[in-house]
């Protein structure tokens, strides 16, 4: 190995070491949550005096927790469906068609992402009040959408950028109606982007706190519940829920990605 290669190897090792350290840093809290959930005692001390999974059982059996899950999932599912529909067309306008004003449009769409969420939540609170809408999980859906629609538009746009417009023209030229073109060509080819977008929409809604805090009214989502409990009334049920939340997200993401890879491999056989 000559000196150039050696120094390159060395640099690569450094980069790896640094990156893995940061990865550990990212997951340390999750680890702590896991540990804190496995205690049988009411308060958290480390090292754990008595291990036990009682709190896991308590949490899974709790009616209150079931309600929370229902609220969070309802919001997330509704947000996903609406966001992906609006964002799909928005992404086509973003990346597929040439039109005057597209550049301005792109920046307008991205604006809600570059915005402090807590301020957005408060603004929506004000707005709902001014317009006379009662706060409930439905208003939270709307609030989530304001932030999530731009994100999903961005995600789908990235896929749309690499879409060859000639594919649609070819299908049209070969005799397909506009609906057939959408069904047979546009949607299938853009599917990976749409799938990623849906995943993003669901997970971002599922884990969202600032927007939910101000707009759910009497209903409560899991993040709101956890926050309330963190501030006052800690039980090991908190880390249980926290761990479940993290694991669900990891599972959905890795699973979703795995599906995409499998599908791609199956198609290429």
């Amino acid at each position: 190995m000559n000196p150039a290669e050696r120094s390159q190897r060395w640099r690569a090792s450094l980069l790896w070491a640094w990156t893995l350290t940061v990865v550990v840093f990212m997951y340390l809290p999750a680890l702590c949550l896991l540990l804190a959930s496995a205690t049988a005692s009411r308060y958290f001390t480390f090292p754990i005096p008595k291990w036990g999974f009682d709190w896991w059982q308590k949490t899974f059996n709790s009616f209150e927790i079931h309600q929370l899950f229902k609220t969070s999932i309802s919001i997330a599912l509704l947000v996903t469906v609406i966001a992906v529909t609006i964002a799909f067309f928005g992404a086509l306008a973003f990346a597929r068609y040439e039109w005057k004003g597209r550049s301005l449009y792109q920046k307008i769409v991205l604006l809600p992402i570059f915005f402090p969420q807590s301020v957005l939540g408060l603004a929506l609170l004000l707005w709902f009040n001014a317009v006379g809408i009662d706060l409930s999980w439905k208003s939270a859906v709307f609030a989530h959408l304001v932030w999530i629609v731009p994100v999903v538009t961005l995600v789908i746009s990235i896929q749309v950028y690499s879409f060859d417009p000639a594919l649609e023209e070819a299908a049209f030229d070969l005799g397909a109606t506009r609906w057939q073109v959408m069904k047979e060509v546009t949607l299938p080819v853009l599917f990976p982007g749409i799938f990623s977008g849906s995943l993003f929409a669901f997970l971002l809604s599922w884990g969202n706190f600032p927007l939910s805090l101000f707009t759910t009214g009497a209903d409560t989502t899991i993040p709101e519940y956890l926050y309330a409990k963190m501030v006052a009334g800690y039980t090991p049920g908190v880390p249980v829920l926290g761990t479940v939340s993290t694991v669900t997200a990891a599972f959905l993401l890795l699973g979703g990605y795995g599906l995409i890879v499998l599908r791609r491999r199956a198609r290429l056989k």
Partner: protein
Amino acid sequence: MATATDRKARQGPLNAVPVILFLIVGFAAPLLAVIGYSFMPERTFGLFQKPSFDNYVTVFTSTSYISFLWSLGLAAVTVILLALICYPIAYGLARVFGRWSTLLTLLFTIPLFVSENVRLYGWILFFIKNGVLLGTLKSLFGIEIQSWLFTEGIIVLGMVYVYLPFMLFPMTLGVSMVPNETRDAAFDLGATRWQVFKEVDLPLSMPGIVIGFLLSFVLAVGAIVEAKVLGGQKVIPITHDIEIAFTYAQNWPLGSALAVLLMVVVGALVLTVLRRFDLDAILGRR
């Protein structure tokens, strides 16, 4: 008569309509409402009172500006730390890690979908008295030190933790935009590694870096949970002030004025930066 060319020109705007309509009702309107409220007399709740500037006077004469400075300061420190932490990772992801990049990116993405307060609570469990860190030190090594919680440093740690992906992903995008051949050409012409970095890597990945800076700064300025959860009452950022005005103090107009100030700062920053960007070049059309 709708010709093929006419139809094509209309496709873009037509597809944009749902998003734009939605954003008008869901984003522009609420912000306008906030601006409207900020001109209402103190402690009122409707939008149709006689307008006044009282709130802005209050804002500029009270101690709110301290909170404001704290928010900006914390955000700035966070962003600089993030840049230093993330650039090597971004470089590795784009250039060095090969087929592991996707898995690593996924690993960095997962925490994004777990809400901030959950993740931050993990840190509390780590740093609290008798928590993971101090408990281990005490039992294994018999060392007893004061908890690091409720300091400014911890707040920064929390913010770095939460906003890391928002710096990392744009940066990775930026680094991947540097064509390999350009770097090779610089080497071939005699540049040292440092020169290549300074003259090629840094300038060409600048769009991604700038977006990373912008995104993490703007989001960090709007941070509220880190200071509350990890910092106790030690630091009150502006967002907390706003929240208090809206909830405990029941003073929506004042809260709105504070929010407007924040929006103006953020908006000015975002518009100046984003205006110079050709998003097509960065995001897709290579």
